[in-house]
């Protein structure tokens, strides 16, 4: 049954059938083969709808992000970041990274972030003397890392599927996200150090003050969302709805860039983005259920555990049981890291999460990472891991978008992408093996 399910799924996937339909048809075929009543197709998709309340945060954050772009809130944010650090030799790469993280957090889609920020920053950086291929590689890599910074849509999806606190995932993603961003800035600093860069003029204090004043309402939105969630005033869903109303109010009445007649267009495009995701979730729930009928997650977990045992067995029995247990966990996590990287290379992050999470959750149980803060650590690790796949040459899907936005060849970008990937992999290992990076902040929450 499992073989039929997976073969059917991958054939349809390669035929470019929408992933949701691949899941539907392959599940039905496998269920019919196993003699399960096919009405389960209807029942399981319907059952997934009950989990949609937490998912409500997704359309709201998408909507808030779109309103912010239209209402001029995002632009002021980039302007503010630019006035603070733009005059440094490595200023613009830093602006690109920080803006991508801020923008990626709300838009949730790395491709959209890369297009939005890259479209502005790649030409600007080229003017200053950065190679176009370098700037495009940076836009691609930094565009993906926003998925770790709250309010990240990807983390909401993980929380919905894995049934983990979204608020804690948000807070847990902060430090890992900042560390990756810092890593990217460091790599670009190393690059710009050796090049002739035309620096931007330093902003005067009054200019900084002006851009701070102009972006104040945008920054304050971050305070409302993040403060509200970390203090336990809002749930993520409530915070997202407040963000929509706040952004619309500021855009309409304070900055006056947003027009009432723009609203239907914004609502429609957000609704479309949401539906593509939530429809996928409905079908993925059926697929996950079929996988579990076929016992796939359990078999995979036990195989992985026995693999780690055989490896530690080779290493000898002279080690203490505690060290052996840690070693086993390390091996399982490494295998998991590599597999997730490969999945992320081929499939966009949202569908990848929906396919992967039901399979890896039993693994998290086997290594004692299914409860409490460890579950948060596991979630952030999985998401961070899949992100890297998005920019791994030659197939990472965000690379394609970036090469189109920056009008360069993926091959020409590759040397720079590899440098950024290097640091992303190092940070991934840190996230995986130093739990405190993720769990320190959420440990203050109730």
């Amino acid at each position: 049954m499992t073989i039929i399910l997976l073969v059917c799924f991958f054939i349809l996937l390669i035929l470019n059938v929408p992933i949701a339909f691949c899941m539907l048809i392959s599940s039905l075929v496998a269920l019919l083969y196993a003699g399960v009543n096919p009405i389960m197709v209807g029942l399981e998709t319907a059952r997934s709808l009950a989990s949609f309340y937490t998912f409500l945060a997704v359309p709201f954050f998408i909507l808030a992000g779109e309103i912010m772009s239209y209402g001029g809130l995002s632009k002021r944010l980039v302007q503010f970041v630019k006035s603070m650090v733009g005059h440094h030799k490595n200023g613009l790469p830093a602006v690109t990274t920080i803006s991508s993280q801020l923008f990626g957090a709300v838009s949730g889609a790395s491709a959209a972030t890369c297009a939005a920020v890259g479209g502005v920053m790649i030409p600007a950086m080229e003017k200053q003397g950065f190679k176009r291929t370098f700037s495009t590689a940076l836009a691609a890599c930094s565009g993906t890392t926003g998925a770790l910074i709250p309010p990240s849509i990807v983390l909401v999806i993980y929380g919905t599927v894995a049934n983990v606190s979204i608020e804690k995932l948000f807070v847990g993603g902060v430090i890992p996200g900042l560390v990756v961003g810092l890593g990217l800035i460091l790599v670009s600093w190393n690059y710009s150090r050796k090049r002739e860069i035309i620096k931007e003029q330093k902003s005067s204090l009054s200019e900084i003050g002006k851009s701070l004043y102009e972006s104040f309402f945008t920054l304050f939105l971050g305070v409302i969302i993040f403060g509200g969630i970390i203090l336990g005033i809002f749930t993520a869903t409530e915070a997202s709805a407040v963000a929509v109303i706040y952004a619309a109010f500021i855009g309409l009445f304070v900055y006056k860039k947003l027009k009432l007649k723009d609203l239907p267009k914004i609502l429609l495009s957000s609704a479309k983005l949401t539906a593509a995701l939530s429809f996928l979730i409905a079908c993925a729930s059926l697929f996950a259920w079929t996988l579990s009928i076929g016992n796939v997650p359990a078999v995979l977990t036990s195989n992985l555990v026995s693999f780690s045992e055989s490896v530690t067995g080779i290493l000898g029995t002279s080690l203490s049981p505690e060290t052996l247990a840690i070693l086993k966990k390390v091996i399982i996590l490494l295998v998991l890291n590599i597999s997730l990287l490969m999945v992320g290379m081929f499939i966009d992050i949202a569908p990848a999460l929906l396919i992967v999470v039901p399979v890896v959750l039993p693994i998290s149980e086997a290594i004692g990472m299914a409860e409490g803060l460890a579950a948060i650590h596991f979630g952030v690790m999985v998401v961070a891991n899949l992100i890297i796949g998005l920019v791994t040459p030659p197939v990472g899907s965000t690379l394609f978008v970036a090469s189109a936005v920056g009008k360069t060849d993926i091959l020409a970008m590759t040397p720079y992408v590899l440098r950024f990937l290097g640091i992303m992999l190092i940070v991934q290992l840190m996230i995986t093996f130093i739990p405190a990076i993720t769990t320190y902040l959420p440990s203050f929450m109730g």
Partner: protein
Amino acid sequence: MNGTVKKAIDKTLDWTLILILGSMSLLVAINVFFRFVLNSSIYWGDEVALVLMVWLTFLGAAVSTRENEHYEFKYLVHKLSGRSLKVYLFSRHIINIIAILILGYYSGLVAIQIHSWILPATEISRSFVYGACPLGCVFMLIYSVEQFISDIKRSR
């Protein structure tokens, strides 16, 4: 399909989505206001938001079908051309239509069988919630068949 009919369907679906997402955001935000400022919440608020989300999902999926915006794995298609591309496109259309028919049929069955179950707060039948799926499938089917026919015409 008749151009005017298609336009009417397009417009209706678009405006339904706009209204659903708009009212959903307002509803949840107003509920937050009630909870924190007036210390009482609208008891049916969360439930209605959830029902709206379900409708948004399946009507939106129809719009995604119309605009080819479902998540896909897009690597093979660029390499095909001529006859192989044609064969591939036709088989893809047929597979999509089969998938929509399957989902529509079984979700329709569930929606009918579940009609006597009611939602706790609003006391409406659950058929109203799960009915979104078969209805969305009807629109998905219309769009898929329409794309199929226009691809056949184009290939002649």
